[in-house]
C-alpha cells in the first residue's frame, strides 16, 4: 500500500484495543503488517454471546470468529498468520519472521514474551536491527509491573476521575477505557521515532510504554498546577477559563448541544441571540455568574431542535455543536462530505477512516480485515521462502491454523 511507511514490515502480536489501534495507524500509513494470531486469538468456534460491537452483517454466520465487528474495525490493512506460539516450531517460525521484519509490536503482560522465550534479547539475536515495541499496562518494571491492567482501571489512577463528574467528592470514570487510545497513538509515535533513530544509527532497540504512564502524561498540566499551589477541581461541564461553557438541553428526549464562549466577541454575539444575558459582564463576572447564565441559555435552547440551534449559533460565530450519538455521527454532513467512514469491509459496514490526510494515502487501496490465518501460505512463502507443501504440513501438525481448534 502507498504511504510514507511503505516498505516497513511490521509483525503485529497485539490484541484487545490499544495495540491493534496503534498498528492500524501504521498500516494506514503504508506499512506492510502481518498479524500473528494465536489459534484462539479471535475466540473459539462457538461464541456464547454477541460480541460488544455485534457481527458484521448482523449475524454470527458459519465463522463467527471472522465477523466480530470490533476486531474487523481495528485490523484492516493487514495479513493474518495464525501461529501456535506454544509450540517450539511456532516460536521458531516467529523468529524467522523477526529476522526479516523491521518492527515487532505486542501488548501482552510484561512477563508474557520472556516466558515464551521471546524476550528482546532473543529477538535481537534473530535480527540485531529489530525494533521491539511492548506495551504492558504498567510497564515492564516497577512495583506494579505484575498487576493486571485494563484501560478502565488505569484511568482513575491517573487523577482524571477526580476531575470528571457532576460534583466534587464523587469521582467518575468515563467507562470508555480512554487510556487505550492514548497508549495507541503514542505507540504509533514510538514506532516511527524508533525507525527514524535506526535510520540514523543503524540500531534497532527495545521501546516500552505503558497505559498508566501515557495516561498520567496527559494530565501533566494539572499535575504541574498542583505543585504550583493551584487546586484543580471537578466542575461538571463548566470550564475554569470560559463562561458560558456547557451542555444545554434541546427539544426532544436526551437531546443536547454543547456551547462555549471562547472570546468576548462570541459572548457579545450570544447576548444578541439569547434574551436575558447581560452583555456588560466581563469574563471574571461571567465565571462567577455561570450558574444563572447557564439557566438563561437552557431556557433558550430547550424548545429548539439541536442542529438548528447550532446552525444559528455558528452563523453568529459562536462555538456550538450537537451532542451526537453514533447514528448522528455517521449522518453528520461534515463527516459525510469528507467521507470519513468507509464501507470497505464485508456487508458494506462503515468503518472509521484515517484522520491523517496526505498525498499518497488512498482509502481506495484499503484491504478489509483478513480471515484468521488467511495469509499463512502467502506470508510464509513470500517472507521466508517456504514451499506450499511445507505450510500444508505445518497446518497438519497444528503449528499453523486457519480457524480456532474445536
Amino acid at each position, binding site marked *: 500500500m502507498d504511504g510514507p511507511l511503505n516498505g516497513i514490515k511490521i509483525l503485529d502480536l497485539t490484541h484487545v484495543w490499544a495495540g491493534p489501534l496503534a498498528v492500524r495507524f501504521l498500516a494506514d500509513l503504508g506499512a506492510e503488517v502481518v498479524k500473528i494470531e494465536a489459534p484462539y486469538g479471535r475466540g473459539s468456534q462457538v461464541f456464547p454471546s454477541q460480541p460488544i460491537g455485534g457481527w458484521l452483517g448482523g449475524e454470527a454466520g458459519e465463522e463467527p470468529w471472522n465477523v466480530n465487528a470490533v476486531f474487523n474495525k481495528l485490523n484492516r490493512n493487514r495479513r493474518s498468520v495464525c501461529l501456535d506460539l506454544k509450540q517450539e516450531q511456532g516460536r521458531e517460525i516467529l523468529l524467522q519472521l523477526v529476522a526479516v521484519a523491521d518492527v515487532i509490536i505486542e501488548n501482552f503482560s510484561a512477563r508474557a514474551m520472556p516466558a515464551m522465550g521471546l524476550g528482546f534479547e532473543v529477538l535481537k539475536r534473530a535480527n540485531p536491527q529489530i525494533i521491539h515495541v511492548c506495551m504492558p499496562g504498567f510497564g515492564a518494571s516497577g512495583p506494579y509491573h505484575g498487576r493486571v491492567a485494563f484501560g478502565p482501571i488505569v484511568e482513575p*489512577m491517573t487523577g482524571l476521575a477526580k476531575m470528571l463528574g457532576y460534583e466534587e467528592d464523587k469521582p467518575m470514570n468515563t467507562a470508555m477505557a480512554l487510556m487505550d487510545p492514548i497508549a495507541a497513538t503514542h505507540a504509533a509515535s514510538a514506532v516511527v*521515532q524508533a525507525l527514524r533513530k535506526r535510520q540514523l544509527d543503524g540500531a534497532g532497540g527495545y521501546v516500552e510504554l505503558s497505559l498508566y504512564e501515557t495516561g498520567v502524561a496527559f*494530565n501533566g*498540566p494539572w499535575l504541574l498546577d498542583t505543585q504550583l499551589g493551584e487546586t484543580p477541581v471537578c466542575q461538571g461541564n463548566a470550564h475554569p*477559563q470560559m463562561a458560558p461553557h456547557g451542555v444545554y438541553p434541546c427539544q426532544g428526549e436526551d437531546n443536547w448541544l454543547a456551547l462555549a464562549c471562547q472570546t468576548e466577541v462570541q459572548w457579545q454575539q450570544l447576548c444578541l441571540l439569547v434574551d436575558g444575558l447581560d452583555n456588560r459582564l466581563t469574563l471574571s463576572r461571567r465565571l462567577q455568574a455561570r450558574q444563572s447564565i447557564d439557566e438563561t441559555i437552557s431556557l433558550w435552547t430547550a424548545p429548539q431542535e439541536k442542529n438548528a440551534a447550532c446552525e444559528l449559533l455558528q452563523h453568529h460565530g459562536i462555538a456550538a455543536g450537537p451532542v451526537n450519538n453514533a447514528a448522528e455521527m455517521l449522518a453528520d*454532513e461534515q463527516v459525510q462530505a469528507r467521507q470519513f467512514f468507509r464501507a470497505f469491509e464485508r456487508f458494506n459496514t462503515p468503518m472509521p477512516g484515517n484522520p491523517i490526510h*496526505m498525498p499518497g494515502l488512498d482509502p481506495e487501496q484499503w484491504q478489509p480485515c483478513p480471515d484468521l490465518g488467511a495469509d499463512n501460505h502467502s506470508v510464509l512463502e513470500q517472507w521466508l521462502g517456504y514451499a506450499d507443501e511445507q505450510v500444508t504440513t505445518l497446518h497438519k501438525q497444528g503449528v499453523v491454523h486457519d480457524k480456532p481448534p474445536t
Partner: protein
Amino acid sequence: MVYPYWITKQTWKTQLTDEDLVNEHGHLVVMDKVLEIGGYAAGYCGKLFAASGADVVRLDRGERPPAWASAKAMDLFLHSHKRTVVSSDLDLLASLAAKADVLICETNTADELDQLGFDRCKTPVKVALTPFGRTGPKANWRASASVLLANGGYTHLIGEPDREPLSLPGHYLEFQTGALAFTAANSARWANQSTQIDLGQLETLMSLSQFTTVRWHCAGELRSRHGSDFWFVVPSQLFACADGWVYLNIVPAFWDPLTVFLEQPELLIDPRFENNDLRMVNRDVLHALIATELAHQSTDELLRKAESCRIPLGVVLSFEQVLADPHLQARQFWQTLPVDNSEPVYTPAYAFLQGNALEPGAKRGVSW
C-alpha cells in the same frame, strides 16, 4: 517590530559543522527544525518533537486559547524544551517556515489557515491542524474541545443516564491530535517526503472511538451513558471503600478470581452470575453485594488482595497521590523543571522509553 536578537541574527544553523552532523556512534545526525504555531494540539506535537531531539521554535502570535490549567502550567508542560518567538508578523512566519523541516500550524478554522499563508510556506513537511479539517461544510465552524467531543460522540456517553451528559475535562482531544500529527510528520520525514498533511480534530476523535459506530451499524443498538459503569462487562464499576474509591473491571476471564478476592466462593455456583450475560441481568444485585463487601476495607488492603488474586482493580488517586506514586518514581517517570525563584517542579517525562526503565542506559523517549 523588534525581534529577539537571536531570531534576527541566526535562529537555526544553516552551515552545520562535522560535530553537528555526527553523533557519538559516528552516524550521521540531522536534527529536524520544527516551527510550531497554534494552540495545544500544535503545542503537544511540538513537545513530542522537542523530546525526540528536534530544534523546536514556537511562534507565539499572542493568542492563548482557554486552558484547563494555569498559563504557567501549560507553558511548563508543553513548551519547556522549545524556543519561543512572539510575533504576529506573517513575513516572519514565512521566513521561519522556509528554514524549517516541519511546520505544525494549528488554527481555529480552515480560512484562518489560508490567511496565515500556510499553502505558500516553503517547508518540506507541513501539517495543518484544524477543528473540522480543511474541507467540508463545517470547515469554518467555530469549535472548542467540548463542541468537538459532543460532535464526535464522546459526550453522549459520559455521565449519568438521568442527567445531562458530561464533557471530558482536560486536553485529551488536543494532545491526541498532536500525537497523531507527530506520527504523520515524522513518517514523512522518515521517508524523506515533502508533503502537506490535513488533520482535523473531529476525525481524530472519531478514529479513536471504541465500538459505538459498529455497534449501531452491526447490532442496531445505540450505546448510551451509564455513569462509571462500562455496562457490557459486569462488574465494571466504581465502588466506595473505607478511605476512597476503587474501580473493578472484571472481564469474564477474571470472574473466578473475583470470587476469591471477595472471599465468596459460593458465587461461582450462583446461577444468577454464571456468565457475563446473567451478570448483566443481575447487575444491581451483584453491585450491591460487592459494595457491601468493599465498603469497610481500605484501598491499600484491596490493592494487596487484588494483586494476590490477580484481578484488575484500580484506585482513584488525587494528583498529589499520583505525584507521590512509588511506581512512577521507581520508573524515573518524572522530569525536573526549574521554575523562576521557586522550587523545581516535576513534569511527566516522555511516555515511552528506550530500554528497560531500571537498567543503566535506559532513557525516556527515543532520540539520538
